[in-house]
């Protein structure tokens, strides 16, 4: 499958990335190279292999419903771009 300009723009939009024209050209080429490389895997005969969601065979990993200590709010304030009255502050979401 080839990646065209439209796919690059759509992917960037979904990933919330703002790309320059040059970046779009660059990524279109890079992503096509990557996909062509991965195409090789199609040469393997997988007709007898069942589709799988996970590569590991682990299952049923649970934790008990026991309260653990939460982190101090100051720690969030340190990493939040903006913090006011105990809340992480962001540009207004709805008009």
């Amino acid at each position, binding site marked *: 499958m080839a990646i065209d300009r439209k796919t690059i723009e759509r992917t960037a939009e*979904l990933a919330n990335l703002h790309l320059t024209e040059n970046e779009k050209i660059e990524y279109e080429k890079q992503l096509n190279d990557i996909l062509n490389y991965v195409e090789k895997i199609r040469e393997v005969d997988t007709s007898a292999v069942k589709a799988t*969601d996970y590569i590991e065979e682990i299952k049923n990993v649970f*934790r*008990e419903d*026991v309260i653990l*200590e939460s982190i101090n709010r100051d720690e969030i304030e340190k990493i939040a771009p903006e913090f006011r009255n105990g809340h992480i502050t*962001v540009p207004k979401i709805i008009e």
Partner: protein
Amino acid sequence: MKFDVVIGLEVHAQVNTKTKIFCGCSTEFGADANTQTCPVCLGLPGVLPVLNEKVLEKSVLAGLAMNCDINRYSKFDRKNYFYPDLPKAYQISQFDKPICIGGYIRVGNGENEKKIRLNRIHMEEDAGKSIHSDDPAVAKSFVDFNRTGVPLMEIVSEPDMSSASEVYEYLTNLKQTLKYINVSDCNMEEGSLRCDVNISLKPEGSEKLGDKVEIKNMNSFKAVKAAIEYEISRQTEMLEDGEKIVQETRLWNPDKNRTYSMRSKEEAHDYRYFPDPDLPPVICSEEYISNLRNSLPELPEAKKNRFTAEYGLSDYDAGVLTSVRQLAGYFEEVIKLGINPKKCSNWITSELLGKIEDAEKIDSFSVRPASLAKLLKLIDDDTISGKIAKTVFAEMIETSQEADDIVEKKGLRQVTDTAEIEKIIDDIIAANPQPAEDFKNGNDKAIGFLVGQAMKLSQGKANPQIVNRIITDKLR
């Protein structure tokens, strides 16, 4: 032109666990903003979510109670989208292998009975909460991540409902079941039960579905009902005027009693679900499922049917008593002590329920089942009248004393001694010659006044049947 209404619901019920779905943060409601978070629910890099075993257990229980098939193999997927209250930029949910599939909830009675089919129940994490500043100069939203990672089960129905009242009943039954099996508190004000409505209209009998509208932001079942009724009339008018229904999300405004368009920016909806590599699949063994099935209590519908069949209660009374599990339990405790079920039911529905605020908290009500049984026995063996019993009951609630103690102390024992009652009646007839004369001359209504006077004079203690009989004997 007539239209068929097609409604499907998505209900998000908070699973009532102590901790979040993938980390040990508390789910307690009402904490200060951002005090119940950790690197896992904040979505910081390098953390590992681990499934809370109680969330799985309670979701399976809900599925079993709602007649679903439990998927032996179930998994979690990432649903990708950007929103400030979603710190990872994806929500962990279940896409193609949800924990429960199919199932149904019954609504209506007898001939009008209808099964509302479920599509699925899946487990997922809640997002955070944002508050938006009203001040245009501020133009900020404030995000609280305490809710982020709170466990939810999303119960998705098929579009099988066709009226607001059907939806109301579906929600009532759903909530009752979730509470019976203790998997959710279903408190709409605290956000532990939320409901999104998908609604469309199509020409009567038509196979083709109309364009649908999603309604959100209703915080009570009444609001859901009102929003649906509003939306049906809005869409009917539009279609009759030849207008096209816009597929959109609308919000309910409870003050203006109408829905309005959310007018969000046209977002590119492409969630790009894929299996979450951090969470291994969940395999439910036959043994696990059958153990949970065996632990299910009697469900509301079965209990109601049993109450009518076994105790001869009316459909309505059985419905009231079984609406809350704790109340049904209380009722059965009382009748176990030899009380007639109908009399007990009448007392609970007409007297007791008016005295308590919340039937779910009846286990902490000051009058315990054994004490109520004693009171009802006193009515039954004519020790006190039903009217006096109400006074005694009020006193029992107030002081936690036993009924017989109150009756003795206050001298409320019913007078059944005919000689004593006869004396009272002689006085009444002497004092009220006109009504006595009227009754004598065939005016049946006049006896009511005389009985009332006699009861008053005896301070409610005379047995009204005996009073009635003696007056009749004396005057006719």
